[in-house]
């Protein structure tokens, strides 16, 4: 038996609270102005004609609304979490996002439950933008750091959004989700929490690994997939979509993380930097099977009427994730920054 004595270097820094980001447009202006005050009234969401699947202003606002359920922000009263005006404001943002997702990714009509697993395999095997291949073979160090910063918006709270789903499942599906989540959260060892492994990667690359430190730099197209997870996680009616999303995420993760690890090694990085990605090659080879057959398969056995929701979550995730990858690749090939500059959005 080993005795856990010294705390790991990756232990969470004490009392760091991420700052509220800068606003990026009318929606975040209204929201952030309210959030620095006492919980109370909040106006309607200003209308916005931009693409609800990637808009910078909408997705930063939605991300911030969700963040209040995760870790919060420095100077923002924690009682905002269940403030009815904020819940309603968030609901309006979600409605815009969800409608766009449905329009783009929901297949109409009843889905045959017996074909769901093969459909999920099909979605997972669809070739997407070759981001991980680019990282493996070509990406410069600067591009690699940008990529890590993009990923930090989710990876520093990795698996948290799916934990909302646990009480909404039962039986085989619940056991499968908890089996995956237990692994994501380090199997009882805090230094093996996947989010902590990601912090170690960021530290090894000289990046700021404090939770939320880079939020001002991260564009809406990167935040959209994370908002999708939070939305699916926080709405019981969307539990099928949450499960479909998680299945695809796990099914497509191992090989792409293998490429990312190889890219870091190509640039001369060692185990500190690659540890997170190496872990995901092995972990997600397990999670892939559990998520497809036991989680999605288990939920389908219990409730075949969720077939359409599972496929919707899977396609929607694959779609927004591909949009993110394409955006990053396009920015790099045009030699444009893929991140906003500190202190101000390049879209504002």
């Amino acid at each position, binding site marked *: 038996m080993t005795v856990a004595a010294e705390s790991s270097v990756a232990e969470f820094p004490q009392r760091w609270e991420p700052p509220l980001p800068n606003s990026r447009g009318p929606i975040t202006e209204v929201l952030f102005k309210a959030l620095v005050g006492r919980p109370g009234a909040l106006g309607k969401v200003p209308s916005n004609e931009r693409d609800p699947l990637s808009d910078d202003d909408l997705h930063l606002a939605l991300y911030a609304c969700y963040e209040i359920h995760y870790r919060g922000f420095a100077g923002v009263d924690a009682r905002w979490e269940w403030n009815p005006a904020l819940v309603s404001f968030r609901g309006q943002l979600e409605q815009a996002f969800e409608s766009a997702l449905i329009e783009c990714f929901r297949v109409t009509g009843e889905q045959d439950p017996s074909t769901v697993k*093969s459909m999920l395999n099909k979605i997972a*095997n669809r070739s997407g933008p070759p981001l991980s291949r680019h990282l493996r073979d070509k990406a410069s160090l600067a591009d690699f750091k940008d990529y890590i910063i993009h990923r930090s918006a989710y990876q520093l709270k990795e698996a948290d959004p799916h934990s909302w789903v646990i009480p909404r499942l039962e039986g085989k599906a619940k056991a499968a989700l908890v089996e995956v989540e237990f692994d994501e959260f380090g*199997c009882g060892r805090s230094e093996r929490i996947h989010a902590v492994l990601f912090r170690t990667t960021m530290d090894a690359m000289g990046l700021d690994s404090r939770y939320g430190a880079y939020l001002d730099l991260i564009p809406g197209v990167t935040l959209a997939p994370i908002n999708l997870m939070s939305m699916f996680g926080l709405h019981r009616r969307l539990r099928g979509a949450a499960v479909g999303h998680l299945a695809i995420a796990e099914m497509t993760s*191992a090989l792409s993380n293998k490429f990312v690890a190889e890219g870091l090694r190509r640039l001369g990085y060692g185990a500190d930097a690659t540890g997170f990605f190496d872990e995901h090659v*092995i972990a997600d080879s397990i999670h892939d*099977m559990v998520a497809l057959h036991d989680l999605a398969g288990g939920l389908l056995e219990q409730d075949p009427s969720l077939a359409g929701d599972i496929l919707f979550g899977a396609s929607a995730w694959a779609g927004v994730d591909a949009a993110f990858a394409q955006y990053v690749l396009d920015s790099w090939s045009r030699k444009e920054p893929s991140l906003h500059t500190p202190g101000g959005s390049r879209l504002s």
Partner: protein
Amino acid sequence: MSNEPEVVITAYPDGPYLVRGAYKIVDANGNDIELTRRTVALCRCGRSSQKPWCDSSHKSFNFRDPAKTGRSTSRKKNTSDDPPSHL
């Protein structure tokens, strides 16, 4: 509890064996291979570069479950999870 098996090994369709329970895994010399998780996946396709673990290499060459391609099984398998034919 007494009639619960100590270890369960499950062959997942077109994928690795998942091992759950109170087990240990040793190398050819009988030395323990470090376990960092409860459930592990053992390579079934033979192509992993991190044996005994599955590293998803089975996906790169479309490993197919031998149970589906001939070997008889006592339980009739549901074929609904067959992979898409274009693979």
